[in-house]
């Protein structure tokens, strides 16, 4: 369960105040997959960093499982957009996945098990000893997802994770997220600027206005739980939903 | 406010250093004969500044530095361009360069003394030797950095060899030349003062040796401060002119 209440963030830039987030309130229920979508430059990443406890909000509050966030909460994992910078290039894939577990003081046999399972789950069996930079972009993002999965989080934050991979890889990774979510029973907050992606992935889509950001609208995605790239995207209901989201985003851009 | 605070802190740092040097000998923390208080060092500095011998020594050091640097830079650039643009020559000289470069220039001190005694020649020999490699190696990097596509473009338009050097090779190598000269400038100062100190050729280094031999400790410290300031001035001037001359260049590169 994730609650964002009246969140506000003001940056100081050269003596000037820039209001990035004005007043954001929404919740993500336990086990839900919610997509956050908004026009570019609307402070999505700022919001996510506040939720992750990496940034102190100027006002309002974030609660995870009933506890106010004032630093990265335990049981939360983050997948960053910049996979190339988020993975440590001096460590092998295995060491990258294992490091957070070592910090959590997970015993060694269990660590090995978790690393292996998570690499299997993202389809990277056999790449454990490679270095991240020896892999393609899509595979690097899979490593980052494996690292998050192995951490056994209750909440998973994903910050435009597929913005920098090619379209086909992207479709595969979207399906990977759906299947992991169903298997692992985690709460996922997925930030994206891609409207189709948000409708395809989410149970619910929260639309943000342009900066200074407020919640523009929310929409429940009543598509069947079994989704796949072919039939779901061809579903007339999918088209209706994406049109609705699109209209709201256009409105948001005009500042309505 | 954010602009001048680092300057303020830096000034506080310098003031703190002076205070420590003033108080440590006065409170008996270190022996006053070994480290005189800052005020006495500054007084000695003022005394030096009033003596013609000091200015003559400073002049000698600067002449040796400038002459040595000019010779080394000229030779280094010329050799670098020739060696760098002929692949066979480059392959042939690579091992020799790699062998000669790390030879500590101070190894040549006895030889310089035999050949030139305690004259300017000794200093020049060491300065040139040490500074030459800095320039040469950078120019070689620079020539290797020439975009093959640019070079082939020039060839397909039937540029003469001279025009290829003038319009393709030289502009690419120029930032590297600057880096090489900047590195060489500080190395040249170190070697000039070292030669004067060890061999006794005229200059600041010799004055330091004389002050040490006559146990004029404050004067010795004052002269060392002068060498440090000289080094700072050369570093800052080199960096400034590099930035100034290469402001147009997209590849003004970071620190080596």
């Amino acid at each position, binding site marked *: 369960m994730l609650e964002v209440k009246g969140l506000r963030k003001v940056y100081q830039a050269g003596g000037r105040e820039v209001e990035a987030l004005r007043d954001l309130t929404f919740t993500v229920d336990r086990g839900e997959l919610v997509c956050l979508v908004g026009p570019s430059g609307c402070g999505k990443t700022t919001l996510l960093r506040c939720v992750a406890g990496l940034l102190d909000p100027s006002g309002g509050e974030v609660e995870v499982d009933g506890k106010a966030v004032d630093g990265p909460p335990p049981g939360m994992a983050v997948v960053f957009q910049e996979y190339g910078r988020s993975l*440590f290039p001096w460590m092998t894939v295995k060491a990258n996945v294992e490091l957070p577990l070592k910090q959590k003081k997970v015993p060694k046999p269990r660590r090995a098990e978790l690393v292996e399972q998570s690499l299997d789950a993202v389809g990277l069996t056999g790449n454990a000893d490679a270095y991240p930079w020896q892999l393609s972009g899509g595979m690097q993002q899979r490593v980052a997802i494996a690292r998050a999965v192995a951490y056994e989080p209750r909440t998973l934050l994903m910050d435009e994770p597929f913005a920098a991979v090619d379209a086909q890889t992207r479709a595969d990774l979207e399906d990977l997220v759906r299947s992991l979510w169903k298997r692992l029973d985690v709460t996922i907050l997925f930030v994206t600027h891609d409207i189709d992606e948000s409708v395809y992935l989410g149970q619910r889509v929260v639309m943000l206005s342009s900066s200074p950001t407020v919640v523009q609208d929310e929409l429940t995605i009543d598509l069947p739980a079994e989704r796949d790239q072919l039939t779901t995207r061809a579903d007339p209901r999918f088209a209706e939903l994406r049109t609705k989201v699109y209209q709201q985003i256009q409105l948001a851009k005009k500042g309505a | 406010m954010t602009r001048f605070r680092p300057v303020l802190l830096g000034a506080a740092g310098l003031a703190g250093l002076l205070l420590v040097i003033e108080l440590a000998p006065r409170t008996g923390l270190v022996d006053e004969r070994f480290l005189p208080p800052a005020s006495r060092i500054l007084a000695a500095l003022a005394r030096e500044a009033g003596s013609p011998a000091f200015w003559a020594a400073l002049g000698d050091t600067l002449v040796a530095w400038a002459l040595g640097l000019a010779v080394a830079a000229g030779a280094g650039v010329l050799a670098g361009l020739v060696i760098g643009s002929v692949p066979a020559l480059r392959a042939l000289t690579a091992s020799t360069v790699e062998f000669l470069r790390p030879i500590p220039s101070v190894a040549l001190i006895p030889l310089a003394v035999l050949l030139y005694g305690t004259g300017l020649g000794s200093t020049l020999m060491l300065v040139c030797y040490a500074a030459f490699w800095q320039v040469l190696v950078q120019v070689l990097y620079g020539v290797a950095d020439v975009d093959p596509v640019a070079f082939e473009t020039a060839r397909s338009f039937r540029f003469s060899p001279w025009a290829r050097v003038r319009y393709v090779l030289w502009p690419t190598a120029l930032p590297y030349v600057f880096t090489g000269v900047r590195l060489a400038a500080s190395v040249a100062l170190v070697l000039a003062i070292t030669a004067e100190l060890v061999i006794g050729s005229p200059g600041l280094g010799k004055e330091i040796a004389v002050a040490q031999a006559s146990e004029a400790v404050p004067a010795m410290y004052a002269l060392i401060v002068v060498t440090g300031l000289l080094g700072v001035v050369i570093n800052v001037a080199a960096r400034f002119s590099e930035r100034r001359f290469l402001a147009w260049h997209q590849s003004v590169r970071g620190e080596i």
Partner: protein
Amino acid sequence: MSFMRKIGYAVGLPLILFGLWFVLSSGSESFYAPPLGTILTAFGDTWTWPAIRADVLPSLLRLAAGYLLAAVVGVTLGVAIGLDRRLRATVEPVLEFFRAVPPPVLVPVIMLFAGIGDAMKVIVIVFGCVWPILLNTVEGVRAVDSVQLETARAYGVTGPARITRVILPSASPQIAAGLRQALSIAIILMVISEMFAASNGLGFTIVQFQRSFAIPEMWSGIILLGLLGFGLSLLFRLAERRALRWYEGLRAAQRTR
């Protein structure tokens, strides 16, 4: 390029140069430039095992002690300064000044404090070497990628692990650059401090040869110093290449992308 041709290129010019030196100097009557043959004979006669034990080994031990101490001090202080913006702003001008002081002028200063024994030479090497290591570490720590730091925080990699697992590896290419600069300074200071005041060591011996006009022996000492400098830089490069293999790979991957 075939292996044989590579070898040919690598040893060709040195062989020619040595050959020229040998031939041109063979009939040399010059007092200062004796025939290479004479120098080589002197090399064999001078640098026997006892002489190496007596003069080269002490030099190398002082070099190693000073260099390693400087590395530990430089990296430790560099991390501390690099992580604290205010501390960095405060000490930066002081550090820039100390870095700009030509290291050999430290010899007379440190002689005041520490006499002319081994301690003096080690301290001189530490004082001369520590600045490039420190300043490069500061730069490296400062340039650690913000996403890497946030990742570490988000996954609970904090405290000592943050420094040893994230900050130090990330700064290591820059630290290596500092260590490389420091190595050549260390060799220079080893020689200089022995030229000033010593009863053994390479620098001392070579100056003795020069003062007693034992010219072929002096030349042999210069050659030995050259070989030493070359050997140490080779050793450093091998160690660097091993430790920073990931960095080479990363850069190669970025270039082709």
